[in-house]
């Protein structure tokens, strides 16, 4: 290996050209073939039972996410102007190509079914906008007494009314959103305000905002890293080449993705993050070694210096890269395709960074020359064995007070484990936005006035028993459960199912008497009410709550929050009814985007935890093999474990929820933790081979590897702290957590790992026995 690398030094220009030509090809591929995937449904594993069922249920009952357009008039909505706006906007939304006309619901489209003395009245609330005071008053009255409308389409304070436009999963585009906002804006007057909300809007905004923010922030991150690298490496050329390695590996990773036709998912934006954090490490270690060599041998030629660098460092560079890549490849165990791709292409990027560090970087040195040597004052008392007083003192200090490290680490780990108990999973999209952003405020506004902007669909399935959901005892249980969930949970604003229609019909057919707002006792009565509704109302409405053969029922719970806590609190109460339904031969299933989001987040986490454990085991085995020592393998896992545990612990204490992004971030703990450990261990082994003095070994390693590790940490932390100024909260969390991981990795490596190495006597025992 070393020979090949040295030979390649002779073909420095050729190596450079080949790498640059290949990069140009990948850039071309990216331009031609890169596609963004913003449809969140494409992220979900299509063959997972929960998704299969949900997708089926969505098509049975036409379950779609709704865009909610709220029309607000502080003077009340029952006036000609507001009602006219409602009518015009409803018609405008029905005309959108992206929206099916029948999927638009508002007070203008709704049927008003009311009981009269001698029968039943089915009317539109209004077709022509009422103009006289008397007619407006009448409309107001009819809305107030219809509980299928009041509180659902018109707020109880009568200042807000909504239009709900349900849309398919794949129709949301930025242009469509802009058009909606424009239409809404145009209808505003001094009195009338229009608000637009709903899950499609939130999802669409998120899919656009995250990457857009990243595009703005990443150049600043790179600039800061550049400046800090320049300061630490003391070399402009070196900085350019080190960053070049990172760029090239990112280009190759994305280029390969484009070439094989894999689209960019939201999680793919994490690939450059990983490569920046991990990729600069090799460069820093290589340059750090080169500096030390040049400082000690100012007369050496660049070929000698480069060869020495390769000789000492090709092994740790290969080892760190292979172990990191293995860590990422373990993400292939995830059921979520974007995560699999993330793991695979990050691993590819890491391996490419290794190739570039060993070929491109040396070729660069050969072409552009060595960094300047720093004069070393040999006479100065360094208080130890290395050339750095600071490193000597630090290493000696750590070893002398080794119990501080051990106890400190133990305490921190215990505290972190306590913190981890407080961790929670969040599949909320809304929580990813600023608390004072338009999208959050609108959502809050609508939730204050209506049942909720998020929904959970419970599908009751009698498994093929026709007319099961005409049976009064079944419907009564459904009704009871709905009321139970609605009453017990403040977060559930509304529930809706077939029972609401039957209750209403029963009341209407009994002269609108409130005591008949119940499920009747006879099955035939239920069947006849349903027939009557079909004949007089819009039968399409029933198709949304029950299937044709009355074998399956769709119950909608409207939630005021879209986070996992809200969904789970509703699920907890629903589950208490599961036994009763099972006894009736009915099974429970769930559907809808909120539920899928919850399952999806769980899947990601489960996959992440599985892959972390797997990669940790793989890494311990790999390191044990590489160093031919099992103890070393175990010791090397310490920085990883500490980094991961602290990261999760702090998330628990700070209330940062686990989400797709923050979960994936734990991969960085592995990637960086193992890099630091391997570089340090390899140096320690080399130094130990030349001396019997444990302290000298520790001090030299600290001066050499330790310095590089600190540089590495400072560079990346400085860069990622920039993300704290991001406008997109998840990107801020990302910046904070990457910085935290870098920090704990380096502290862990230089303290507790060193102590463990020292105490374990590896590399010294044998000599003593000899």
């Amino acid at each position, binding site marked *: 290996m070393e020979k090949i690398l040295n030979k390649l030094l002779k073909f420095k220009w050729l190596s450079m050209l080949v790498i640059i030509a290949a990069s140009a090809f990948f850039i071309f591929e990216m331009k031609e073939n890169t596609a963004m995937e913003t449809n969140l449904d494409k992220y979900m594993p299509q063959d997972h039972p929960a998704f299969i069922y949900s997708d089926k249920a969505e*098509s*049975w009952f036409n379950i779609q996410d709704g865009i909610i357009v709220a029309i607000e008039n502080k003077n009340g909505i029952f006036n000609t102007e507001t009602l006219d706006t409602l009518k015009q906007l409803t018609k405008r939304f*029905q*005309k959108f190509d992206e929206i099916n*006309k*029948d999927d638009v619901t508002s007070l203008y489209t709704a049927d008003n079914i009311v009981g*009269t003395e*001698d*029968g*039943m*009245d*089915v*009317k*539109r609330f209004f*077709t022509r906008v009422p103009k006289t005071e008397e007619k407006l008053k009448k409309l107001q009255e009819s809305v107030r007494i219809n509980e299928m409308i009041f509180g659902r389409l018109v707020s109880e304070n009568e200042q807000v009314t909504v239009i709900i436009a349900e849309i398919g999963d794949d129709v949301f585009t930025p242009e469509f959103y802009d058009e909606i906002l424009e239409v809404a804006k145009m209808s505003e007057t001094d009195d009338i305000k229009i608000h637009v909300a709903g899950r499609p809007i939130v999802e669409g905004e998120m899919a656009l905002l995250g990457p857009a923010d990243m595009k703005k922030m990443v150049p600043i991150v790179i600039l800061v890293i550049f400046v800090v690298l320049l300061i630490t490496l003391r070399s402009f050329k070196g900085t350019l080449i080190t960053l070049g390695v990172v760029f090239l590996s990112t280009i190759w990773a994305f280029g390969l993705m484009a070439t094989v036709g894999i689209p960019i998912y939201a999680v793919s934006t994490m690939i450059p993050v990983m490569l920046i954090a991990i990729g600069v490490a090799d460069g820093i270690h290589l340059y750090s070694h080169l500096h030390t060599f040049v400082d000690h041998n100012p007369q050496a030629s660049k070929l000698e210096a480069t060869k020495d660098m390769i000789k000492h460092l090709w092994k740790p560079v290969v080892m760190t890269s292979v172990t990191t890549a293995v860590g990422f490849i373990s993400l292939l165990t995830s059921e979520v395709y974007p995560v699999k791709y993330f793991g695979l292409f990050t691993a590819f990027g890491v391996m490419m960074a290794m190739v570039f560090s060993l070929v491109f970087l040396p070729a660069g040195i050969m072409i552009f020359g060595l960094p300047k040597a720093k004069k070393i004052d040999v006479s100065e008392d360094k208080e130890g064995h290395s050339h750095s007083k600071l490193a000597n003192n630090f290493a000696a200090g750590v070893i002398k007070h080794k119990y501080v490290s051990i106890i400190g680490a133990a305490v921190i780990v215990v505290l972190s484990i306590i913190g981890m108990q407080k961790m929670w999973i969040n599949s909320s999209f809304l929580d990813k936005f600023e608390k004072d952003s338009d999208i959050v405020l609108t959502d809050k506004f609508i939730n204050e006035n209506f049942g909720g902007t998020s929904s959970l669909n419970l599908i009751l399935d009698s498994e093929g028993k026709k*007319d099961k959901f*005409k049976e009064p005892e079944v419907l009564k249980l459904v009704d009871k459960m709905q009321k139970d969930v609605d009453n017990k949970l403040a977060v559930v604003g509304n529930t809706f199912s077939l029972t609401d229609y039957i209750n209403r019909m029963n009341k209407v*057919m009994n002269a609108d008497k409130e005591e008949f707002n119940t499920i*009747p006792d*006879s*099955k*035939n*009565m239920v*069947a*006849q*009410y349903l*027939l*009557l509704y*079909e*004949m*007089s109302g*819009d*039968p*399409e409405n029933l*198709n949304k709550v029950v*299937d*044709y*053969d009355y074998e399956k029922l769709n119950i909608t719970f409207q939630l005021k929050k879209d986070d996992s806590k809200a969904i789970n609190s509703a699920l907890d109460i629903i589950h208490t009814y599961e036994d009763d339904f099972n006894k009736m031969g009915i099974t429970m299933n769930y559907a809808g985007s909120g539920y899928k989001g919850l399952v999806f987040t769980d899947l990601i986490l489960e996959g992440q935890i599985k892959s972390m454990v797997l990669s940790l085991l793989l890494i311990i085995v790999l390191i044990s093999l590489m160093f031919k020592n099992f103890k070393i393998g175990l010791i090397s896992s310490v920085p990883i474990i500490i980094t991961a545990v602290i990261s999760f612990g702090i998330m628990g204490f700070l209330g940062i929820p686990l989400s797709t992004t923050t979960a994936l971030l734990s991969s960085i703990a592995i990637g960086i933790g193992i890099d630091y450990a391997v570089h340090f261990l390899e140096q320690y082994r080399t130094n130990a081979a030349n001396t019997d003095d444990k302290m000298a070994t520790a001090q030299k390693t600290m001066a050499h590897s330790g310095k590089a590790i600190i540089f590495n940490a400072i560079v990346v932390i400085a860069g990622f702290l920039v993300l704290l100024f991001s406008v997109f909260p998840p990107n801020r969390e990302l910046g904070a957590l990457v910085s935290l991981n870098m920090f704990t990795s380096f502290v862990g490596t230089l303290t507790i790992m060193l102590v463990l190495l020292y105490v374990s006597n590896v590399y010294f025992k044998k000599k003593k026995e000899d």
Partner: protein
Amino acid sequence: MKTLKLVTAALLIVASLGAQAQLTGREIVDKAYNIPTGDDQTSVLTMTLTNKSGQTRVRKIQQFTKDLGDTEKSIMFFMTPADVKNTSFMNWSYDSDKADDQWIYLPALKKVKRISSDSKSDYFMGSDFTYDDLGDRKLDADDHKLLREETVDGVECYVVESVSKDEDYMYSKTVTWIRKENFIGLKKEFYDEDEELLKTLSIKKLEEIDGIWVITHSEMENVQKNHKTIMELNDIKINTGVPASKFSERMMTRGI
């Protein structure tokens, strides 16, 4: 004299041919709307609804209709499914602009209730037919235009486009293929407010009973919702003298 007779006859033929050639869209539709149906009719209607998943609902209804000049009365009793058996429905529709009167009787409730509905575009018993589609539409609610004449499956037809005068009407226009032979429709296309095809009606079977043409099998398909309704008529009896007293609230509660 003989020649004169011949000339007169020839002229008459020419005149009638000319008259036929001059039929306007409106006249064609007027004839189609006014096909004799007899004074009363009794039949069993089987309605099969099929949704997009291929699930079906079959309903069998015994129905009676009677034309009382300015009023057309109908009464129907559900025979199946069992859970709605003897549910009955009565409709009085008027030639004047007066809205239909409708009653429903639910045997489980044991009460006759009036239903008032202001929407003429209401679907008939959950099917893909609206009341208008079933022949309740007034001639002058639309502007009719003869588009062309063509032969479909060997049947010579007029193709007439009818555009609604009311902009808010659920169909922007309909296109009807009307048989030249007897002015009974062959098929019809319904276009929604955005002028996109919404439904197609096909008349599959015609029977002449006691000199009256009756459509005995028709299919309406909503192409936007993938929903279909088949209507079949059996046991048709015409002009049997159904008494006017049959169409009362009391008779509704009696069952079949």
